[in-house]
């Protein structure tokens, strides 16, 4: 019996494996537009149409497609390449950011009937987007156009579409795993079932006998060297506490062994056959208990590991006092103190972690990932180098870490990111590259390691859970007399980002308020849980939640409008952020929009009628919060960029930072187009590849626009100068009479095409290119505010958001459409963390929420439209007046919501998420009796 089906009109006759789903069948045939988001039917990224009906191909038995016609996103456009109307709409509205979910949205929305289009909450419940907050997707479906095509030289400040848009909507954008590699081997990891154990023995014999298994790696194969999976410009920011494979495991899910095989199936079978003898050790999950005497010690390591107090499980700590808080509280008329807890949250980028390691001849950069087996591409084995194609925010720092780990020279390792399917901080980490490279080097074969969705939960990182005690003292008129924080951050089993997140958490959150007396006591503590890591906001969101909740409560106790209380105590323009841990000298308010952000809230309150939308009998309330964030991490953030004129008269930008939907590529082209007087379509960008520039610290710390963008601006400005100088000489015309046009230099009435300029320069041996560099210092400060009006059903705990308003001070906004998308996405992600997201551990520390059906992400129906208002400021430090706006919109959301919930219910909720059952329970407990008892 021969198998037959059609994919996008083309016949295929290869019989699927008996347990194969349609998703992998299609991807194995090269239809890479079909994405793996969850592999469990929850996210919809793999949606295809079978005989016209949309299905989640990860759940569809491939054999069932026999005799049927399957359409993937690659088959959605007409045979002549004309886009399907829905594809065009997603382009026009820019209904995507990273784009990983887009194919699934297109294959779903293009199949909706009229009735379904009128009920988007239900029609889109099987499609998750982690980036956009859905407003842009809704606009796309409704045919709203946002993109503009401005005149040459006028790109800055306009709504340019992302350069990768056409590839995103046609499923041809190449993400990390969208490559065919001949001879590719697959790695699977065996993970620890115990929260703390010593490995006494590992028997790999049976695993090695599984047909197709090539290699099993255990701690015996791993270097002794300790490192941190966190990536920073300065590796000393993180403790060296991690081994590639360790003989002690410290959390359920830690990798114990790796199996490399011809197929994932064989690698999985190999993992099942490994026999490990563990000696279980005592474990601790609570950070306060972990610091107490007698607690099991996770990392009995020496000072070379840079762990603050290993014997107390204190990974890092900070203590400081400015003035005397004791005196400050004594002087206060009102003192308020409360303890807040934030939960574990996962980044949930739709593309999982992973990498593909290949080899290429040294010195001959090829198309990354399109590489053959070692040696195939020519060149002797001795002259090749390792190429790591990774889902990373930090290609350069990953190369540095791999070289340090395996004693490799930098020129022997190239790290490349394709298009990255979302990051949110989770990919500022080396979680797969280390072990995949080890295997590839051993076998001298290409190796792929791609995390499953479950592994994202128990084998990657989370946001740091925090315990925050805030104490505020104020005079009757609202003047703050003292602020005290006690912060305990749970870094989990490893200290990656632990100390840095802890330091950041108490920085701007306290510094934005003026008070004569301030005190901080902060701990980053090891426990036997899944490690925490970098997450959008980098600790600031957790402490902002606490302090903004406390400020709201203080205002209530003082009987002062919480807006007035803020206005009375916030730092003003020209002031410095003072904190008990010392001032960060390179941090300046180089533009001040906090007053405007608060004005947005005042305005929203003044004209609000949304309370009328509340159902009868529901409790209604409103609340707001604000946040400040430094534009870039402390200690420097480096970006190099090169802009050059090309033979065809276009330009090329080379820049190191990665694109994962943050939109920096769009902004970089706009900045260059502005500087060079051209249009963005004449500019190509090469990026996130250690070959293209000298160095780039990476796409984190909200640095894409203000750091890498500044380097691009410098390079583009310098190139513009060079172009004019060269052309003036060439045309024998005074430079002052020259003007750069879209594709030519206007020379006092004469037009010299850039092609001609290029030829002329080549003739003289001149390369028209220029470099830019920015070290990320000094830094400015960006501000945000968020306001909600909500309604609460006291009978069920259900909460509805009646209105959502956000104020953002991003300096001069480079691309309003895109920046609005960043804000909306931040608000939506924060709403997830406010309303329902929680990574839960059982009593042994095992994650029990390792799938999207157990870890609820905001869906279309959960996210209201947020009105976004930008401040009119222009920054003195950022490129063209711009400031960061990627992490910060997240931070004021949870406290604004908690303050609105307090207003509606009279109850101060201190422990997000604010789930319906818990809100109902708190209301019921206050009423003092349960229904019908």
């Amino acid at each position, binding site marked *: 019996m021969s198998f037959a089906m059609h994919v996008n009109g083309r016949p295929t006759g290869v019989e699927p494996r008996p347990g194969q*789903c349609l998703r992998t069948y299609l991807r194995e045939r090269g239809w890479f537009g079909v994405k793996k988001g969850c592999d469990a039917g929850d996210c*919809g990224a793999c949606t295809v149409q079978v005989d016209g009906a949309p299905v989640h191909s990860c759940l569809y038995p491939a054999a069932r497609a026999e005799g049927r016609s399957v359409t993937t996103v690659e088959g959605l456009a007409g045979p002549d390449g004309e886009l399907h109307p829905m594809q065009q709409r997603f382009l026009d509205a820019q209904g995507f950011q990273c784009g990983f979910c887009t194919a699934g949205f297109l294959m779903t929305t293009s199949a909706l009937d009229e009735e379904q289009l009128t009920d988007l909450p239900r029609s889109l419940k099987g499609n998750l987007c982690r980036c956009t907050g859905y407003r842009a997707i809704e606009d796309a479906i409704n045919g709203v156009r946002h993109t503009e095509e401005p005149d040459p030289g006028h790109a800055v400040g306009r709504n340019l579409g992302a350069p990768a848009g056409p590839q995103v909507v046609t499923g041809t954008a190449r993400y990390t795993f969208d490559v065919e590699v001949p001879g590719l081997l697959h790695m699977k990891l065996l993970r620890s079932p115990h929260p703390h154990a010593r490995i006494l023995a590992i028997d790999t014999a049976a695993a090695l006998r599984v047909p197709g298994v090539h290699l099993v790696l255990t701690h015996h194969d791993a270097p002794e060297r300790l490192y941190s999976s966190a990536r920073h410009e300065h590796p000393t920011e993180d403790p060296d506490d991690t081994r590639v494979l360790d003989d002690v495991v410290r959390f359920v899910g830690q990798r114990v062994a790796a199996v490399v095989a011809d197929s994932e199936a064989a690698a999985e079978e190999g993992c099942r056959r490994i026999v490990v003898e563990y000696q279980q050790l005592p474990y601790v999950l609570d950070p306060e208990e972990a610091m107490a005497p007698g607690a099991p010690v996770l990392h009995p390591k020496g000072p070379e590991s840079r762990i603050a107090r290993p014997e107390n499980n204190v990974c890092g700590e900070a203590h400081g006092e400015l003035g005397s808080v004791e005196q400050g509280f004594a002087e206060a008329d009102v003192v308020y103190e409360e303890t807040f807890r934030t939960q574990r949250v996962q980044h949930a980028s739709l593309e999982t972690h992973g990498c593909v390691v290949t080899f290429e001849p040294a010195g001959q950069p090829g198309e990354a990932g399109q590489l053959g087996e070692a040696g195939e591409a020519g060149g002797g084995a001795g002259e090749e180098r390792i190429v790591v194609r990774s889902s990373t925010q930090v290609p350069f720092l990953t190369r540095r870490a791999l070289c340090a780990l395996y004693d490799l020279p930098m020129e022997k390792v190239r790290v490349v990111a394709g298009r990255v399917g979302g990051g949110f901080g989770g990919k500022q980490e080396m979680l797969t590259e280390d072990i995949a490279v080890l295997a590839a080097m051993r076998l001298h074969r290409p190796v792929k390691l791609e995390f499953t969705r479950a592994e994202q939960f128990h084998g990657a990182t989370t946001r740091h859970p925090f315990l925050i005690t805030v104490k505020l003292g104020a005079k009757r008129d609202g003047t703050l007399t003292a602020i005290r924080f006690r912060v305990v951050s749970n870094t989990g089993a490893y200290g990656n980002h632990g100390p840095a997140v802890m330091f950041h958490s108490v920085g701007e959150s306290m510094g934005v308020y003026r008070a004569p007396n301030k005190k901080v006591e902060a701990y980053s503590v090891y426990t036997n849980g899944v490690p925490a890591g970098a997450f959008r906001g980098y600790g600031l969101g957790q402490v902002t939640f606490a302090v903004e909740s406390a400020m709201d409560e203080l205002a209530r106790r003082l009987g002062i409008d919480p807006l007035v209380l803020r206005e009375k105590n916030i730092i003003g323009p020209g002031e410095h952020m003072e904190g008990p841990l010392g001032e960060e000298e390179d941090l300046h308010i180089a533009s001040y929009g906090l007053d405007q952000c608060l004005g947005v809230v005042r305005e929203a309150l003044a004209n609000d009628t949304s309370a009328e939308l509340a159902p009868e009998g529901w409790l209604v309330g409103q609340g707001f919060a604000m946040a400040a964030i430094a534009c870039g991490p402390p200690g420097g953030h480096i970006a190099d960029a090169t802009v050059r004129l090309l033979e065809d008269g276009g330009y090329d930008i080379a820049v190191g930072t990665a694109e994962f939907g943050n939109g920096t590529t769009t902004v970089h082209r706009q900045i260059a187009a502005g500087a060079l007087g051209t249009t963005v379509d004449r500019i190509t960008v090469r990026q996130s590849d250690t070959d293209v520039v000298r160095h780039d610290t990476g796409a984190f710390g909200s640095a894409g626009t203000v750091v890498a963008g500044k380097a691009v601006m410098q390079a583009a400005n310098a190139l513009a100068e060079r172009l004019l100088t060269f052309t003036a000489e060439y045309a024998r015309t005074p430079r002052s009479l020259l003007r750069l046009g879209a594709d030519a230099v206007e020379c006092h009435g004469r037009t010299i095409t850039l092609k001609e300029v290029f030829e002329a320069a080549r003739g003289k041996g001149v390369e028209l290119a220029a470099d830019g560099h920015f070290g990320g210092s000094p830094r400015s400060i960006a501000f945000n505010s968020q306001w909600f009006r909500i309604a609460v059903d006291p009978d069920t705990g259900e909460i509805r958001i009646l209105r959502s308003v956000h104020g953002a001070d991003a300096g001069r906004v480079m691309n309003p459409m895109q920046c609005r998308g960043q804000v909306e996405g931040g608000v939506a992600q924060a709403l997830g963390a406010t309303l329902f997201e929680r990574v839960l551990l059982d009593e042994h520390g095992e994650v029990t929420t390792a799938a999207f059906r157990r870890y609820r992400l905001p869906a279309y129906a959960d996210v209201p439209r947020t009105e976004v208002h930008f401040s009119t400021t222009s920054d003195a430090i950022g490129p063209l007046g711009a400031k960061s706006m990627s992490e910060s919109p997240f931070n004021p959301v949870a406290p604004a919501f908690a303050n609105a919930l307090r207003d509606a219910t009279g109850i101060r909720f201190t422990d997000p998420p604010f789930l319906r059952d818990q809100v109902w329970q708190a209301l*019921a407990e206050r009423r003092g009796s349960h229904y019908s008892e």
Partner: protein
Amino acid sequence: MDLNTVAELRDARLGGPWRTGDAWLGGGTYLFSEPQPHIRRLIDLGRMGWEPLTRTPDGGLEIAATCTVARLSRYGRQEADWTAAPLVEQCCRAFLASWKIWNTATVGGNLCNGLPAGPMISLTAALDGVCLLRAPSGEYRKVPVAEFVTGSGRKDLRTGELLRSITLPARALASRTAFRQASLYGLGRSAALLVGTLDPVDGSLTLTVTASTVRPFRFWFPPAPSAAAVEEAIRDGIRPEDYFDDIHGLPAWRRHLTFHFAEQIRRELGSPS
């Protein structure tokens, strides 16, 4: 996801003895959503050719186990002419899963998963559904849906036994219904799903409690019961440990919703305030 331990996909029509590691493949939407390392063979029901929906001679409805949720939903919205028809779509919409999943998910699969939040369990239990089960020997037996599901993920299904269909009797189809559902999240998995049915002949009220409890609970009341009678029946009938305790809702909240919705349903179906 790929089920890599599956070595054979076998057409169920071929028959043959049931082996350890066998699993019936209905729509596959559950099986392929989680790792199933214990499964070696999928016995594919995809080609059984069972008529999805059949009216029985006495006016009932026989739903084949392989009937997709999408087919049942369409039938409920467009074809069914009986009084209880709106309940079909209400229950379909109580799925956590997207309507795209409905295109392949089967009614039988939902019953055989036996999860408290399974909305096809709610639907068929509330409409007096009876499961027709076929043993490997070919013998048939019948079990009411409310007894078929015995706990969270537990059901009265013996090794190798197959759910062939669920039959809803004509009298239940003719009943007036009221539906209430709540979830921890908007359009989320049910934390409580209650259905009231008003008997067309004697006016009695039957309350079916699902999702908030580990298995379906049914309560019968003579016409126009009082609030106290309904409350008492639930309090006596559902023990504290019968309320489902998982991450999708606290048991106390589920219990509260059960009483809350029961009273709303009682009133909606015409009992005095």
